[in-house]
C-alpha cells in the first residue's frame, strides 16, 4: 500500500500493541516488587526470585518441561519436515486429502478433545502415562504447526534449483540435503522454536496425558495460580518470557546474519 498511514491507522496499531504488551509488562515489573500486594509498590527487589530458587517443586517441574519441550520439538520438526515435503513435493497420491486434513485439523481442534482422545488411546493400549506419553502428545500437536511453517517455505522458494540439480544427475535425497535443506534452514529453526514454546506452554493436553512423576511447569503453575496470585509465579513467568524473547531475537539475528553472509558470498563469487 503506497498511501501513507492516517492518524487513525497509527492510533489503531498503537492501541493494539499497548493492549498486547501492557499486561505482560505489568507482570514483569511486579515480579521485582518487594511487596506481596499487587497494588502496593514496596520498591525493587529480587526476593521472589530468591524464593523461586528454593522452590524444589517448581524447579523440578521446569526441568521436566524443558526436556519434554526439547525432545518433542526435535521429533516434531523431523515429522513436520517429512509431512511438508509430502504435501509440496510428492504431487497427488491416494489419501492426500485425508492427510492434509489430519495436518490442519489439530491447529484448530479444541485442546480438551485432543487431550482426551490421546489419553484414551494410551489407556486402550495399556501404556503407562508419564514423561514419554506427554512427549508423544506434544509431538503430534506441534508437528502440525511445524508442517505449516515449512510447507509455506517450501512453496515459496525457487524450484528450479532443485530441478537443475536433479537434471545434472543428483539423486533426490542428495538434492534435498545439499539444495533444499540449506534453503529452508530458517523455517526449520522457526519450526523448532515454535514447537518448543508450544510444548513449554501447554497445560490441557499435558494434564490429560501425564502421569505420576511427570508434572510439567504449566501444570505446576496452574495449580498454584488457582489458589491466587503469588509473586513467585510472577518471577518464573518473567524468566520464561525473557528466555522466549531472547531466543526469538537471537534466532532472527542469526537468520539475518546468515542471509547477509550468503549475499556477500554470492557477490564475491560474481567478482
Amino acid at each position, binding site marked *: *500500500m503506497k498511501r501513507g498511514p492516517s492518524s487513525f491507522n497509527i492510533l489503531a*496499531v498503537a492501541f493494539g500493541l499497548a493492549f*498486547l504488551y501492557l*499486561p505482560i509488562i505489568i507482570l514483569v515489573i511486579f515480579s521485582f516488587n518487594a511487596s506481596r500486594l499487587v497494588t502496593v509498590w514496596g520498591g525493587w527487589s529480587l526476593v521472589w526470585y530468591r524464593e523461586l530458587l528454593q522452590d524444589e517443586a517448581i524447579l523440578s517441574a521446569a526441568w521436566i518441561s524443558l526436556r519434554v519441550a526439547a525432545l518433542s520439538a526435535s521429533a516434531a520438526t523431523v515429522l513436520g519436515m517429512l509431512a511438508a515435503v509430502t504435501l509440496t513435493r510428492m504431487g497427488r497420491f491416494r489419501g492426500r486429502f485425508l492427510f492434509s486434513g489430519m495436518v490442519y485439523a489439530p491447529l484448530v481442534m479444541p485442546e480438551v478433545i485432543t487431550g482426551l482422545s490421546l489419553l484414551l*488411546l494410551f489407556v486402550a493400549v495399556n501404556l503407562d502415562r508419564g514423561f514419554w506419553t506427554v512427549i508423544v502428545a506434544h509431538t503430534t500437536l506441534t508437528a502440525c504447526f511445524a*508442517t505449516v511453517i515449512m510447507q509455506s517455505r517450501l512453496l515459496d522458494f525457487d524450484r528450479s534449483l532443485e530441478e537443475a540439480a536433479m537434471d545434472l544427475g543428483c539423486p533426490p535425497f542428495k538434492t534435498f540435503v545439499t539444495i533444499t535443506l540449506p534453503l529452508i534452514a530458517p523455517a526449520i529453526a522457526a519450526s523448532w522454536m515454535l514447537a518448543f514454546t508450544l510444548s513449554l506452554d501447554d497445560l490441557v493436553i499435558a494434564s*490429560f496425558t501425564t502421569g505420576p512423576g511427570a508434572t510439567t511447569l504449566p501444570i505446576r503453575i496452574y495449580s498454584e495460580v488457582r489458589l491466587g496470585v503469588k509473586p513467585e509465579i510472577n518471577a518464573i513467568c518473567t524468566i520464561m518470557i525473557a528466555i522466549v524473547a531472547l531466543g526469538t531475537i537471537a534466532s532472527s539475528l542469526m537468520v539475518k546474519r546468515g542471509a547477509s553472509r550468503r549475499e556477500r558470498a554470492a557477490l564475491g563469487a560474481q567478482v
Partner: protein
Amino acid sequence: MQRDQRTRSWGARIVILVPYAWLVIFFLAPFAIVLKISLSQSVLAQPPYSPVFDFAGGWEELKSFIGQLSFDSFRLLGSDSIYLFSYLKSLQVAAISTAFLFLLGYPIAYGMARAPKAWQPALVMAVVLPFWTSFLIRIYAWINILQRDGLLNEVLMRLHIIDTPVVWLSSDTAIYIGVVYSYLPFMILPLYASLEKMDESLLEAAADLGCSRWSAFWLVTFPLSLPGVAAGALLSFIPIVGEFVIPDLLGGSESQMIGQTLWTEFFSNRDWPVASAIAITLLVLLLVPILFYERLQQRSLEGRRS
C-alpha cells in the same frame, strides 16, 4: 536410470508413510476409541441393540461388544440441562468474542498494512511475539490486573471513576477480556496477510472513478479482505468454543463452558463415558466450521502453488 526411479519411489514412500502413519495412529484412531468409550458404560440397564451388526465372522465377539454399547451418556447429555447450557454458553462466548476480535483486529491489521514497508516486518513480529510467550502466563497476567485489589480497580478509583472496587474477576466480562486478548494475534495475522497483498492501483482506479475513500473501502478493500476475515474468524471461533484455561481462571463458577464441563466430568467425576460423549458432541458441533477452515487452508495453498 531404472534403478534410480525405483529408489526414489521407495524413499518417497517412506517420506509419505512416516507422518501419515503417525497422524493416523495419534490423531485419527483415538477418535474411534473416544466414540467407543462414549457408547460403553458399565451400568445395569443396557438397551438391546439392533441386530444389523450380525455378521457371520466373530459373532460372539461382536455380540459381547455390541452388548456393551449404550447411549446412556448421550441420553444424560440430553436430559440434564447443565450440558445444554454449557454448549450454549460456549457458542455464545465464541460468537461474541469473535465479533469483538474482528472489530478490534481489523483496524489494527489495516493500520499495519498501511504502515511504511520497512516497519511492517517489525510490526508483524511485535504481534506474533506475545503468541510465543505462554498462554497461561498471559491469562495469569490479567489476574494481577482484574482481581479485587488489582490494578484496574486501583487506577479507576484514583481517577474517581468508581468509588468502591468493582468485581471484574470471576465474571463473564473477565472471560471476554481474556479471550479477546489471547486470540487477537490469530485474528490480526490472517487479516494483515490479505490486506497487505492488496493492489493499491485498485483504490486509485476507484478514486479516479469518483469513489470516496469511505465507499472505496467498502466496495474494494473490504470484499477483497474477506478470505482473511474468514480465516481469522475460524482460527478464533473453533478453539474458543472448546476453551478451558481462560474460563477456568478468569470466569465465575455459576456457569461453565463446555471445555470446563468435559474437564470436570473427566478429572473430578471420573466419568469417562460422559466426558467422551461431550467430546464427540463437541466434535460434531464443530465439524462444519473445521471442514470450512480446511477448505480455506487448502485453497489458499493451492492458489500459491500455481
